[in-house]
């Protein structure tokens, strides 16, 4: 049994210390993810806390879940998106997007200083959908597999590959332009 599995097993047995460890780790990750969609930290903290409390309350069912981490990541994500949507409705916003928008400001193309993140690059990023940006975030930053990303975004694995591939191709196209313009 891997250490990871051992930890989850301890939680399902009711070990609060181990639960606290996992809580800290996951809360931090959820928070980081949430900040890509909203600056309202109360919303993010509540969504994360709810998911993690649910984890504890359903700890005896942990062994039934294939991948507890992605499962509860999804739970937190759904909580957050529902809360953001509710906020938007209450604010009287028309034309709500399917999912909240991934903040372009949180994407950094390394090698470009913030000042010189050119208009073209910005445009390139804006051309990507929130789903594409989130897919890249989940795959490249969080390190989830394509299968796990598909689960979280509730789409097929094939669709996930396509989304990421298209996003990368588009970006590459634009960065290529940048390189050309530099010469």
């Amino acid at each position: 049994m891997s250490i990871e599995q051992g930890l989850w097993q301890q939680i399902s047995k009711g070990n609060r210390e181990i639960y606290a460890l996992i809580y800290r780790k996951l809360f931090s990750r959820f928070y980081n993810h949430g900040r890509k969609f909203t600056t309202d930290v109360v919303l993010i903290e509540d969504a994360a806390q709810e998911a993690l409390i649910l984890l504890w309350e359903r700890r005896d069912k942990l062994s039934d879940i294939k991948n507890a981490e992605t499962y509860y990541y999804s739970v937190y994500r759904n909580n957050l998106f529902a809360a953001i949507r509710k906020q938007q409705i209450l604010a009287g916003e028309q034309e709500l997007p399917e999912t909240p928008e991934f903040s372009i400001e949180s994407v950094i193309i390394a090698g470009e200083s913030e000042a010189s993140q050119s208009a073209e690059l910005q445009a390139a990023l804006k051309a990507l959908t929130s789903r594409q940006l989130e897919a890249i975030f989940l795959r490249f930053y969080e390190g989830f597999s394509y299968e796990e990303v598909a689960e979280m975004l509730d789409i097929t694995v094939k669709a996930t590959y396509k989304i990421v591939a298209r996003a990368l191709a588009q970006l590459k196209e634009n960065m290529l332009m940048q390189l050309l313009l530099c010469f």
Partner: protein
Amino acid sequence: MPHYNNSSFQHFLDDASFQQWVLFPDVENAQYWKDHYQSHPEQQKTMDEARNFILSLRFKDDHPDSEVIERSLARALEIIKTKESASPIRKLKSKTRIPAFWWAAAALLPILFSVWFIVSNKSVDKELTETDAGPAQTTTSILPGTDRATLTLADGSMVVLDTADQQSIMGQQNVKLISANGQISYKATAQALKGDEMQFNKIVTPRGGQYKIELQDGTMVWLNAASSLRYPVAFTTNKREVELEGEGYFEVAHNAAKPFIVKLTDGTQVTVLGTYFNINSYTDEKSIKTTLIQGSVMIAQGGQQKMLRPGDQAVTGQDKFNVVHLANTDQIVAWKNGYFSFNDDNLESIMRQLSRWYNVEIAFPQGVPDVLFSGELDRNLKLEELLEVFSTMKINYQIENRKLIITP
């Protein structure tokens, strides 16, 4: 113009295994891609470019400060704790146990008509929930127990502990004592463990009291009403020994080098390494019950020794030393979680528990009604509220000063 094979660049970019190697290398994929790199020199430039591209896509770090994390964790644990001690559970089931001879008597005596009714159904499970009628107003309401205890220090001086104040009782043997919110904690300084002559403290809970102690080694002890714990201020020797009277629930800090031993008044010794268990050793109960929740303990009594596994309960007493396995230990530690839990318990045993917690005397002037009860009741109800539940099951009660009189 930069010259590379377009499709092959994209190919590397979209390859999950390539991505994995670039971002999250491990022994396996590092080996594979290193080999590939070396055996395909014509692809090296493309691979480098794809690699750089992937690495260039970054995201801002928005991780929270540890303060934010800890605050959230603390709040979550609070919520969990509140939910777990639940709302007053007031469901109680009664089962009238029908002795055989009532079958014969029933037909003869018309007075026993109501009994005959029950008799014909063999046993009746009546499930009752507390009505909102509320208790009748009495001038002297009997309140449930609270966090109360008396602490006797090594020098013999006594301190009264209750929730009202946070007290900092000064360092004996380089150990700081803090009492607040129903708990007293022993925090040792580095000096404390230097093999000084051991000093002992004793905590005594009165009837209607309960208290929690955090010993110097981190062990937590919940003390029920009418109980006492005698223990060293600091564990300086190679054994951690404490003495218990009454009922206590222990969560023993793990220390393989120093076994933790609980000594009971009848000579029984419970030895533990690191574990959670409950000991019920009231002298007015038939036997001493040690229930292991988690970990492992060894019980020694009258020359015999037995090891317990989680869920086991050792029942010791005069000439008795048995081990049974309990399907569910929740009932044993219910008191520590704030409620009474009964499982086909008779009135006498139930009243004994109530008398300790509410500090009342019990009297059964017409004998003990032959009824068994199952269910759970919040420990923080006033006595009258609790008894209301029983009265709906044809158990009558009367309270005179601090005496509870039960009649059928």
